[in-house]
């Protein structure tokens, strides 16, 4: 990751490509040119160091710039330009969101994401939670539903917690909470009396949590089970017997590297073998 970071800072490499709107220097609508710049490259592989720059006319066109562009993960703003900082495919979502679809196993905490953490230490008023990032996150004991100074939550070292990040940037220690802004738990907190926790890549996590995930649809046909998926690549599974739990674990781990057809045949075989 460090190498890639260095690469994108160094613009003198002849490799870094610049995408500009030279063909449309006289455009009246500024937003159209920006979207057009991106649209050419949607679905294509981009490398770190590629730059999207927009030469917008500054002559009193302030009223047009009311729409905003949202750069998702993998894209970074650098003054008036947008730089790519991860290698992957450019994706687009209406009306104005762009991001880079890439693969990685290492998790970087981001605000608002729900993750599974393991409590490693209890010190005073906070718990130290390992979320798989570069630093351990802190979780205050008041950040549970119904917790007060007298009524402390029942959290021990080694417990699994499902929480959200309130603070997660590269300058500060990440902070987790197990309640939402209204004070309700919404399923967050300590869980996992039984079951198995294992690690997968972040790409598989996104595929599992996609709105109409095929993997989930195929899996639920086999047998009933419970699943908690954390955005940090950790997945917890619980089924009726230990054997079923292990089967689901193995299926999820192998889903990583299979095409959908291979996956469906494998699942069918398992379902038949089980029944």
């Amino acid at each position: 990751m460090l190498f890639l970071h260095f690469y994108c800072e160094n613009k003198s490499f002849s490799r870094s490509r610049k995408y500009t709107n030279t063909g449309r220097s006289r455009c009246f609508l500024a937003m159209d040119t920006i979207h057009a710049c991106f649209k050419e490259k949607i679905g294509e592989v981009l490398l770190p160091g590629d730059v999207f720059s927009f030469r917008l006319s500054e002559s009193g066109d302030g009223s047009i710039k009311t729409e905003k562009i949202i750069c998702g993960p993998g894209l970074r703003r650098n003054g008036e330009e947008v730089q790519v900082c991860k290698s992957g495919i450019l994706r687009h979502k209406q009306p104005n969101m762009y991001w880079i679809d890439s693969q990685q196993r290492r998790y970087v905490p981001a605000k608002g994401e729900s993750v599974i953490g393991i409590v490693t230490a209890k010190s005073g008023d906070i718990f130290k939670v390992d979320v798989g990032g570069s630093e351990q996150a802190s979780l205050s004991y008041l950040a549970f539903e119904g917790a007060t100074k007298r009524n402390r939550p029942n959290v021990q070292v080694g417990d699994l917690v499902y929480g959200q990040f309130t603070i997660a940037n590269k300058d500060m220690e990440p902070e987790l909470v197990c309640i939402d802004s209204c004070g309700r738990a919404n399923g967050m907190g300590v869980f996992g009396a039984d079951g198995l926790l294992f690690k997968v890549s972040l790409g598989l996590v996104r595929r599992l949590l996609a709105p109409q995930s095929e993997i989930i649809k195929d899996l639920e046909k086999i047998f009933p089970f419970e699943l908690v998926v954390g955005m940090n690549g950790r997945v917890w599974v619980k089924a009726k017997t230990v054997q079923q739990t292990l089967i689901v674990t193995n299926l999820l781990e192998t889903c990583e590297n299979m095409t959908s057809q291979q996956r469906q045949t494998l699942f069918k075989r398992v379902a038949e073998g089980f029944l």
Partner: protein
Amino acid sequence: MQRGLDAELKKQLDEEEKRIISDEHWFLDLPELKAKENYIIEERSCVPCEDLVYGRMSFRGFNPEVEKLMLLMNTHKEEEEDEEEDDVSRMETDITDEEMARRYESLVESMRNKFAKKRNRSTVTKSEEDVNCNVVGDQPKKVFLKPQD
């Protein structure tokens, strides 16, 4: 005898103090910089990009509470998208509006009866139930007559 300072003197002293204090303040001798309006927003998380669903899931009734949560959280997310189009938001009511109106009618009636004087109570009830206007309006109210000496 005047003790203390005049109001004018006080004002002058205050102004001098303020001047001294503001002279001691340090400030940057730079031209006014305008903050540029940023129209590119950075978003670090991929959850809104790909519309990821809630992370806790349960299938085929393994954990009914989690299944309820799944419905709640996933429809909550869909409602947020729909509500952007609706401007009017009606609160969900347990009782319909008509029932409420009926309840209020009878409530007003019973309250009026309660605070009406005993003499008026019968006339009030009769006039309410009477639909064909057969009841004549009540006679002039009986007031206390002071005895004449």
